């Protein structure tokens, strides 16, 4: 154990790490936005009375949740071209992450939808709103407030999952860290700095979500 820490090589490439971090955050942001849309549609499928909607939605959630995300990432990048779907690295990764997020968020939203009291829907009907208006202006806002904590933790875990994009050479934080590793051989320092960047960003995201929750909390 005669290793002496020397961070200077890592500091010289620090802007690369920051660029990687920015890309990681961008990937996570895109994935959570698209994932929310997919999850919302799937959640309405999961709580629907029609088996024709419920079964496929359930199948999607079960299959995606029980498959390792690395397999999904590799599948969509290397195997989809065989089906004629050609996507760039970043597009294919965002798509995969969104589909992955959608399955987790569908379960989150389903719980949130079931927690909205039926009286809210009845009240909407009583003042003459259509089914679509009730959903968009009453049920979805109430549901979102209910699920805000889970939404926050999903965002954080998606941010961490962006590290898997390194496996298909998307230049996000983990990929840049590996590159700096190979170029400078300052292995210990690079991983210390990279993990600290991840931890700091996760704490920041968590604090941000808590602030949003406080602002949107139901007044009592």
């Amino acid at each position, binding site marked *: 154990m005669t290793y002496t820490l020397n961070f200077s090589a890592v500091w010289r490439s620090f802007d690369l790490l920051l660029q990687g971090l920015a890309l990681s955050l961008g990937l996570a942001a895109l994935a959570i936005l698209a994932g929310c849309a997919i999850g919302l549609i799937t959640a309405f499928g999961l709580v629907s009375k029609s088996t024709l909607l419920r079964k496929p939605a359930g199948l999607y959630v079960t299959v995606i*949740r*029980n498959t*390792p995300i690395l*397999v999904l990432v590799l599948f969509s990048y*290397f195997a989809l071209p065989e089906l004629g779907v050609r996507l760039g690295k970043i597009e294919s990764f965002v798509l995969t992450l969104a589909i992955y997020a959608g399955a987790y968020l569908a379960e989150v939203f389903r719980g949130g939808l079931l927690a909205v009291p039926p009286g809210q829907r009845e009240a909407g009907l009583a003042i003459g709103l259509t089914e679509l208006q009730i959903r968009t202006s009453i049920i979805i806002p109430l549901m979102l407030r209910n699920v805000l904590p889970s939404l926050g933790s999903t965002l954080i875990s998606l941010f961490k999952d962006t590290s*898997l994009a390194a*496996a298909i050479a998307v230049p996000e934080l983990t990929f840049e860290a590996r590159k700096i590793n190979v170029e400078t051989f300052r292995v210990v320092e690079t991983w210390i700095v990279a993990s600290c960047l991840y*931890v700091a960003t996760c*704490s920041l995201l968590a604090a941000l979500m808590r602030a949003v929750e406080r602002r949107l909390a139901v007044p009592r």
Partner: protein
Amino acid sequence: MDFSFLDQLWVARIPLLKGLGVSLSISLLSIVVGTVLGVFVGLALTYGVRPLQWLVRGYTDFIRGTPVLVLVLASYYVLSTVGIDLGPFQAGILALAVFCSSHVGELVRGALQSIPKGQTEAAKAIGLTFPQTFAYVLGPQALRQALPAWVNTAAEMVKASTLLSIIGVAELLLRTQEVISRTFMSLEFYFFAGFLYFVINYGIERFGRYVERKTAVPS
């Protein structure tokens, strides 16, 4: 897809089975080591003296804020740099066990804290010592609380085992990639690997639901 896939699958059966075996041993080992570690983490978080609590809180927060892939890469490259020579398999297990311990630690803490204070007070009132209180009153109730979530963690570990392919452990995913580089049947073989993982994890998920039903407090 034609029959040549089945032929290739038959040709590749031995490496794929070996890979599956390695994946299962990675998952099993990291769950066992991670759970033992995690129980200590959970106990320290709940009953530890203040400085110990801060230390362990820092550990769990750091591990939970770092992606598993980073843990795996760091464990493999850092340990060998500072002179601890572990193979990729051992380094990978270490990383996954550490990851698992932070999750188990939090769910043990959550389970212990959810037990009403009255239970401890009742145990004190009938003269039980703390170890006795833990063994007869708190432990069993915490176990019932934590078991379903623990089964979920187990499924999580099976999925995380795929990450060891990146540091060159010949588990199922790496074996699959090797077969693909020989046969160029990426669609079929990734699908097959995904299917195997699905079957394992779905089995664990069903088992988790069963455990949840069995351990639910009768109402």
